[in-house]
């Protein structure tokens, strides 16, 4: 018998450490974002300058500087949030995919391989930073900046909770659609400047794909905008209720179709399978990423996985009621806030609840994206164009017009909105039930059993 050598160190310590970090990370990140987002407003800063520093904020010359420091801290935390979310998404995706594929997956660094993303990041930072001899050096270096800017700027208008948003722009969703387009500039630059035929293929595919799918995505976004009557992200969420039958996706049959169109278009825009043509490994080796190494590569990688979170969060905002907590209306937040300079504890509790709701919904949508990645084959470039221009664009136009008519109907007969919400919610539950039944039947047909023991 071969002797089994256990890994060095105490497995129990490893497990506890991993659990502690896994639980502390979201608390720290969400907590910091919550606190800083609340503080980075003119009023709390003015109160701080008056009460703590003892200056009159209106005349003291450094009030703006204090505000800038708080805002910079918020920016820093949000970028960290984006990076860590992307990294944990990678870990989660790898664990889910290994379950789907009968493999073990990450299990080396930390319990369940939870710290693998730290090891990967450190490894990528230490790799040689290579620029091909014939590459266009300036553009080659510039490309990751564009990609990361397009990624980071989205967080400005991304709502995390009832009051937790960096800046509730009145053109929020319009702004997000605009800055997302920066990513494609980066990818196109990467493809062109690498001076490699594979990278060029990838860049061209990406440009064609992202620009085409911006159109159905933009049109589908019009549906929740029309229903809410505002472009503001928080405004769109406030126009929806907390219960499923109050979500936009169910209160208007056209919005359900618009969601499907929007979801497909978002998959294509973030180059997720089945639309991963720009980096199709089996066709283009790595596409636009072919010549990138080290930190620059890490940036592309981070943005790709961070976008999974972002696209899920946007879908949740537009169609699934965002952070709305069941049973808590807009007045409850107002009442819990109190009159002090800093909000009362109950208000913080409500904020945490709203962030939790938002997180859970986003996480569920994110899982859907992951499942799709690991079950679908890739479509071909002409089929991708066909799907966009022949089906999604006309479909998005139809939902747009249907929503206009629906809104007129709702204005006359308000009850249709509730009826549609209830009927479609029941239909969705039945579809979910049917899916679970089919899954169970398929598992049994394969002589298998549902087994979650070796997570």
């Amino acid at each position, binding site marked *: 018998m071969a002797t089994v050598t256990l890994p060095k160190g105490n497995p129990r310590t490893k497990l506890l450490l991993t659990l502690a970090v896994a639980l502390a990370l979201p608390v720290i990140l969400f907590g910091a974002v919550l606190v800083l987002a609340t503080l980075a407003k003119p009023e709390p800063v003015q109160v701080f300058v008056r009460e703590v520093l003892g200056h009159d904020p209106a005349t003291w010359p450094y009030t703006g500087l204090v505000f800038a420091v708080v805002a910079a801290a918020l920016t820093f935390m949000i970028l960290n949030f984006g990076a860590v979310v992307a990294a944990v998404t990678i870990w989660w995706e790898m664990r889910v995919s290994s379950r789907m*594929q*009968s493999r073990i997956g990450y299990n080396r660094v930390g319990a369940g391989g939870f710290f693998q993303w730290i090891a990967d990041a450190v490894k990528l930072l230490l790799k040689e930073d290579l620029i091909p001899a014939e590459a266009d050096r300036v553009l080659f270096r510039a490309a990751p900046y564009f990609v990361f800017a397009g990624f980071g700027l989205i967080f400005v208008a991304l709502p995390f909770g009832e009051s937790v948003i960096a800046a509730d722009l009145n053109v929020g969703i319009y702004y997000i659609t605009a800055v997302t387009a920066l990513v494609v500039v980066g990818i196109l630059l990467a493809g062109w400047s690498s001076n490699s035929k594979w990278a060029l293929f990838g860049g061209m*595919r990406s440009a064609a794909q992202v620009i085409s799918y911006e159109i159905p995505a933009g049109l589908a976004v019009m549906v929740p905008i029309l229903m809410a009557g505002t472009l503001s992200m928080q405004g769109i969420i406030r126009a929806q209720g907390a219960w499923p039958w109050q979500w936009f996706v169910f209160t208007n049959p056209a919005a359900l179709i618009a969601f499907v169109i929007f979801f497909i278009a978002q998959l294509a825009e973030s180059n997720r399978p089945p639309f991963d043509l720009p980096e199709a490994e089996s066709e283009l080796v790595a596409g636009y990423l072919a010549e990138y190494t080290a930190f620059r590569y890490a940036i592309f990688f981070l943005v790709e996985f961070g976008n999974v979170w972002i696209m899920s969060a946007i879908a949740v905002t537009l169609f699934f009621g965002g952070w709305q907590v069941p049973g808590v209306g807009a007045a409850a937040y107002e009442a819990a806030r109190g009159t002090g300079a800093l909000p009362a504890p109950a208000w913080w509790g409500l904020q945490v609840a709203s962030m939790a709701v938002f997180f859970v919904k986003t996480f569920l949508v994110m899982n859907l994206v992951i499942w799709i990645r690991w079950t679908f*084959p890739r479509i071909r*470039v002409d089929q991708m164009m066909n799907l966009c221009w022949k089906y999604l664009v006309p479909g998005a136009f139809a939902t747009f017009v249907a929503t206009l008519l629906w809104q007129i109907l709702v204005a006359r007969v308000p009850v249709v909105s509730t009826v549609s919400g209830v009927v479609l919610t029941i239909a969705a539950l039945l579809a979910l039930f049917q899916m679970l039944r089919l899954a169970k039947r398929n598992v049994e047909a394969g002589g298998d059993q549902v087994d979650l023991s070796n997570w």
Partner: protein
Amino acid sequence: MEKLILRRVDRNNEEMVLNFGPQHPSTHGVINFIVETDGEVMKRAIPDVGYLHRSIEKIGEVTGYPGFMPFTDRIDYVAAMFANEGYAIAVEKLLKVEAPPRAQWLRAISGELVRIASHLVAVGTMTMDIGAFTPMVHGLREREEINDYIEALCGARLTYNYHRIGGVAFDLPEGWRDKVLAFLDRFDKFLPEFDRLITFNEIYKKRLANVATITREQAISYGLVGPNLRGSGVDWDLRRDMPYGAYPSFQFEVPVGKGWAGAVGDCFDRYYVRCLEMKESSRIVRQALETIGQTPEDIMAKVPRNVKPEAGEVLSRVESARGEMAYYVVSDGTNKAYRLRSRTGSFTAMSIIEDISGGLMVADLVALISSLDVVAPEIDR
């Protein structure tokens, strides 16, 4: 070829010459395709073979007859059992001996298990080339189990060296038969699961239907063999039509391309023929395991230690996982072959690529290569 490389690319029509390989994830080994493209659409793809040439045929002329057996493993490392078998049959014909029935049965059992393993790799990598990663891992999981059984049988997982001139090296290990039968029970359930997972996926069908269609006439005139030939609707299988070994004793169907998703002979037909063949192979193994008890225990015919056949020439043909595999051996009466030639399915499959690649997209070339199930060392030898 030279002309193409040296020819100046006409910049006015935006044509690009792309080296698709030799290191490319989808060429499954070291093959190069010189692809002339106009954007995503190819004008043609010219296979450039020879990167894996190891002079195996020449080695066969210097090692002596029994010593060449391990080298045949390296002709096709995905399904080495058939290369063993073809060579063993060829030398047995030269020596005018015949392997005992039990050896024939063992050859059929090991061969059909390896055919399943090879087809699992073929359909698995095909799904991966189309962009779905999960089915490949499921296929490889089943293949690993087959590798375990083959390892228990002959001690090797990939390069078996199981056949001997006049028989096979080892008899069944104890308990092997029941384990393999239990595996086949599971495997028969796995195939429909695999179909549910990927075969009837709408995107997958759309990617393969009507892509790179090879007509019946083209398939015959280019000398395609095996599943590639049957995918084009030609009903030809050596195991049934020119039976050898134990195959006349077994009942099995020969699946033929029917245009399941589009035209007869498209990529989907070549893919699905392999899926159906795995089922038939499972049937053959089952029958062979049930009847092997009736054969006498002898697994080796009487073969002299110094194999020195009379002068003459023979051709042996076996149905490999990649189609008909033939060995042509010329003996001059010494203990080394005067000439040894192996004919493999992958090499002829390469020749058709240039003809049918015009007008396909780059992504279709990947589908075409994997649907032909070429294995690089089998092309070059």
